[in-house]
């Protein structure tokens, strides 16, 4: 199993959420101090460089118009880290394909970063969370269609090697695509896709051999989705399938239980980020059946029900993993058992007001005292070719 350090690069010094309708989408940017922003960007990049030193991989993402995430262009952060790190794999999870104007531009950006990093890039694509649609103005009923059409065009741009090709799809028209550079990794970098509840979409991810990632969900839900992936996977070797399954909890590791709890409470800031209800569920983003429940008062957005529960519940469910190194290891192990195994542990180890010093301590403890045990316990076993042939 591999572990990846992640932060959304938050801007936690915003007005008291009780005084504003939302910290996403509509919070006026007069509350953004660019001098503080400069400090934060450099600090978060330093922490990613520390991840590289500690032997952890790096995960990046992007969001827009929100205090939870100052990384508004993951390819830019990836480009910086491609130069400033040397060992870590760098996973963008992901490029918000449905909300980007041009998939071919993404193919070019990823190919360039892949070359600069000498093949250390993993390229994720996401449909984008509901509130992104207010920044991008993407039609909420078409995000999945745009996601897949964009991925097809991007992958074709990476892999087509004999001059220009033509594409006239529903959302994009190109008559002469022929990108320079190509990706460093051939035929193309590993592709990742996130999902939360749409099983047909997960099966599509599995059929293409892409890595499937889930974030911050209770283990029963995670198992259901991982099972859907495993049932549809193209990999005969279960270990190869497991390599393509990823999960992200919030992770905080402390020397003592008390210290870890303190870290965890700060990181949990992310789960409470106030979002106005209309931004959480634009019409058409989720299926009709969800909105029937919403009309009856039973559904307020995909993740709200989980996040409204307390920190103990989140720990029990594996949405958060925190404690001493031993305890964190045991929580990873328990979650692994609950969900039928997975191969990539994505860790939001920084959020909210968790300071640089605290983040460094948590990351370092994890990397030195938890990660070696995880690497050993959940090592990928070589394929048993004989068994597969039978």
């Amino acid at each position, binding site marked *: 199993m591999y572990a990846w350090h992640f932060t959304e690069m938050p801007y936690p010094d915003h007005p008291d959420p009780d005084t504003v309708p939302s910290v996403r989408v509509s919070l006026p940017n007069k509350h953004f101090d660019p001098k503080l922003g400069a400090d934060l960007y450099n600090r978060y990049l330093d922490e990613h460089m520390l991840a590289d030193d500690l032997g952890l991989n790096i995960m990046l993402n992007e969001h827009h118009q929100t205090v939870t995430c100052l990384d508004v262009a993951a390819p830019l952060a990836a480009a910086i880290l491609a130069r400033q790190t040397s060992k870590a794999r760098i996973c963008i999870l992901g490029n918000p394909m449905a909300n980007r104007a041009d998939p071919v531009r993404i193919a070019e950006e990823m190919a360039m970063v892949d070359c600069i990093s000498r093949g250390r890039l993993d390229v994720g694509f996401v449909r984008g969370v509901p509130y992104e649609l207010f920044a991008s*103005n993407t039609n909420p009923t*078409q995000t999945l269609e745009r996601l897949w059409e964009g991925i097809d065009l991007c992958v074709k741009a990476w892999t087509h090697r004999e001059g220009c090709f033509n594409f006239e799809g529903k959302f994009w028209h190109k008559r002469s695509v022929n990108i320079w550079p190509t990706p460093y990794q051939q035929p193309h970098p590993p592709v990742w896709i996130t999902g939360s509840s749409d099983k047909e979409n997960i099966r599509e991810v599995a059929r293409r051999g892409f890595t499937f990632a889930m974030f911050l969900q209770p283990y029963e839900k995670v198992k259901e989705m991982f099972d859907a992936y495993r049932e549809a996977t193209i990999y005969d070797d279960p270990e190869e399938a497991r390599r393509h399954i990823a999960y992200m909890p919030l992770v905080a590791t402390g020397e003592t239980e008390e210290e870890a709890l303190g870290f965890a409470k700060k990181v949990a800031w992310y789960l409470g980020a106030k979002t106005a*209800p209309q931004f959480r569920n*634009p*019409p058409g983003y989720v299926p*009709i059946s969800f*909105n*029937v429940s919403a*009309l009856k008062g039973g559904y307020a957005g995909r993740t709200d029900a989980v996040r409204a529960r307390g920190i103990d519940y989140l720990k029990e469910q594996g949405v958060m993993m925190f404690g001493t190194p031993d305890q964190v290891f045991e929580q990873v192990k328990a979650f692994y058992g609950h969900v039928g195994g997975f191969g990539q542990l994505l860790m939001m180890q920084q959020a909210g007001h968790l300071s640089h010093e605290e983040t460094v301590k948590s990351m370092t403890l994890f990397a030195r005292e938890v990660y070696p045990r995880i690497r050993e316990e959940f090592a990928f076993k070589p394929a048993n070719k004989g068994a597969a042939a039978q």
Partner: protein
Amino acid sequence: MADNNSGNVEFLKIEDVDLEVERRGAGPPLVLLDDEEGLTRESPLVDELAKSFEVIIPSTPGFGRSSRPDWIETMDDIAYLMLDFLDATGVEDATLIGFSLGGWIAAEMATKNVTRIGRLALIDPYGIKVRGPWDRDTQDIWFLTKEEVQVLKYADPKNGDIDYTEMPDEKLEVIARNRESFARFCWQPYMHNPKLKRRLHRISIPTLVIWGAADGVITTDYGKAYAGEIPGARFEVIENGGHFPHLEQPELFWEVLGGFLADAQQAA
């Protein structure tokens, strides 16, 4: 399929769309295009109209129980399909009335072909961009809270209170589909077809545009500009009526609409 609140309901195949069509009353044909929330068809106005017309209420694709194939993407697609629907029904000299989104669709249809349409009434229709790129002609109903939208939509916001908790799932599904389809067609460009304004001059039949004075989503100025693009169109304002003036001020509304229908029929 008939139940207590409706007349005869049938499904017509128009191209590959299964179109839900309800008919009430008898008389000359009157095609009513409902608002995006499906409120008008349940209002007493339809009973009033059914006294002197055969009221034909087709659900446009994606609304009510009409299907919505993927190729239906724009108001153009819907307008042409609804013209095909008129051809399929064979109506002649029909009165076409549209409310809100239904008004927009009716306007689109009338810019394309009025062979089967004798007169047109539009009630607080969406559909055009009046002012410049920095001006918000139509308030952003998806950005605002439910409560804020209700204040904009109704002269008395309480008139917009609906209790969904006791409704059967079948009805909630229709409501959820209506909302989804509304976003599908109106998210971007937001609530307008950039081409429509310059086509409105093609409407060559008697036209009445009715506006709720208290419509805060699209204001009376917008309505005036809309009517101003249609040659000879009458523009009438309903005091103390919001975006659905026929629901909030039924008597005042009927005076205006009933008069127009009587005049038009006499002239015909």
